[in-house]
């Protein structure tokens, strides 16, 4: 990513849509890049070793792409987390052009969630939901009857999502994103009672608290993954899917 010379607008979380639109119009030639994603950039050494991998991505990507990053639109409200807020402060302090946004008020608006319920592979569902924040895609979707559920945020390691069948519905924060309500905790905690669900959180993320609690409450399974999913995590998910 560093070698590309195109000027960039960095984002993380779910930036307030009006502000994102304004910045897109201000920098029409710039490419928008999601700094939450792991592009295998070198460690900046800013954060502790034992810390949320997604936040490390945000910081490490920013430093690796510093020359091209004209602006970062940083989600710092409840739609992201305190780590997003702290990261924004650190990057400002390091000379980045950071615009903080909070997206917590939706005026009663709630969007449908066809991607979460579609027959796309789980990885594609999550990618599409996140891509839609930047630019809405028009894709014809087929709804499936849910056989399994995935609750959580887009993980650092997308590879373990291949274990899930296409009949997996998406819940948690990722569904809140598609619903256009990323800070709606009640929606985030809602799952379909009878669907066997894997409750995922990034290791060291505060959402581990919710994931573990909800897994117990709904007879699901809790997994947390730091960098990449270990064989035992993958085997647990496989076994959960197979034995149910």
């Amino acid at each position, binding site marked *: 990513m560093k070698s590309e010379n195109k000027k960039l607008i960095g984002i993380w979380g779910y930036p307030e849509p009006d502000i994102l639109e304004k910045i897109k119009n201000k920098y029409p030639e710039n490419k928008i890049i999601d700094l939450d994603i792991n592009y295998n950039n070198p460690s900046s050494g800013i954060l502790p070793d034992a810390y949320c991998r997604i936040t490390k991505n945000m910081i490490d990507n920013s430093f690796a792409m510093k020359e091209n990053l004209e602006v970062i639109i940083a989600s710092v409200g409840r739609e992201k987390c305190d780590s997003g807020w702290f990261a924004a402060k650190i990057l400002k302090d390091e000379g980045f052009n950071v615009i903080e946004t909070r997206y917590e008020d939706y005026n009663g608006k709630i969007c449908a969630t066809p991607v979460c319920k579609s027959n796309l592979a789980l990885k594609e569902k999550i990618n599409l939901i996140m891509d839609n924040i930047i630019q809405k895609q028009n894709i014809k979707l087929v709804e499936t009857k849910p056989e399994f559920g995935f609750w959580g945020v887009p993980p650092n390691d997308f590879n373990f999502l291949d274990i899930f069948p296409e009949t997996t519905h998406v819940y948690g924060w990722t569904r809140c994103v598609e619903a256009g309500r990323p800070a709606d905790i009640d929606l985030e905690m809602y799952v379909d009672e009878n669907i066997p669900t894997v409750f995922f959180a990034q290791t060291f993320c505060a959402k581990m608290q919710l994931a573990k609690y909800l897994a117990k409450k709904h*007879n699901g*399974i809790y997994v947390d993954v730091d960098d990449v999913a*270990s*064989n*035992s*995590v*993958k*085997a*647990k998910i*496989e*076994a*959960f899917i*197979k*034995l*149910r």
Partner: protein
Amino acid sequence: MTKLYADAGTTWTKILEIYEEEKDIQKSSLLQINNLNNYFVPENGNKYYSREEKLFTGRTFIMPTKIFSFADIKLDGATGHMTGQKLKPEGIYQNEVVSLAYGAQKRVKNLENSTIIDIGSRDVKWVKFENNQYKDLDWNGSCGSATGATIEMLCGFYGVNPENLAPEREKIPVTCGVFAMEKIMDNIASGIPPEIAVARYIHGIAYNAWIFSKKPEKVYLSGGLCRNKCFIESLKLYCEAIPLGRFMLIEGLY
């Protein structure tokens, strides 16, 4: 023709070979292994049943994984993370937790409200059943490292025969393996015999496995620690414990 199934763990590999006639084993690919009979373990007798209750004749072996790894063997079914490229093209790999669950369902006809725990060389995995149906599971694949292999190393280091260890009421916490080692050394430095320090450590592993598996009332135990009386008696301080032997995961393969 014989059929070969293996559960290849970090330290030990368990092998089941099933066949229809005695003459079949004369052509077994296992014969290339030096001193094969030294690894023969008649733990389950020689009668084996598939999940469809079809009867087979078979024989079982337990050998160091490093010996298994170098043998040119092709498997019909495998579990464990050391099976490498040994599967036949039509062979089936099944992960350890699924194998454990299927093995338990096959071996224990009534799994009403019980948990099966497998303690390997470096991990702990368990599956809970309610009314014979899967209910819950977990696999501690990294922080459960203070398990079977560590006991073997400790016994070797201190010259302790694990068969002679008596259970201890006191336990050494093993949540962190490094701190547990420090405690063992502290015990021994303060004049406590190694047999007692190691038994306390084994008690700590039993307690840790029980807590990790969510405090079950009844446990079926799988893995090498089935042969460790000190471990089983320590586990019985917390729950009913029934050892099933070392071939549970293989039982789940066919």
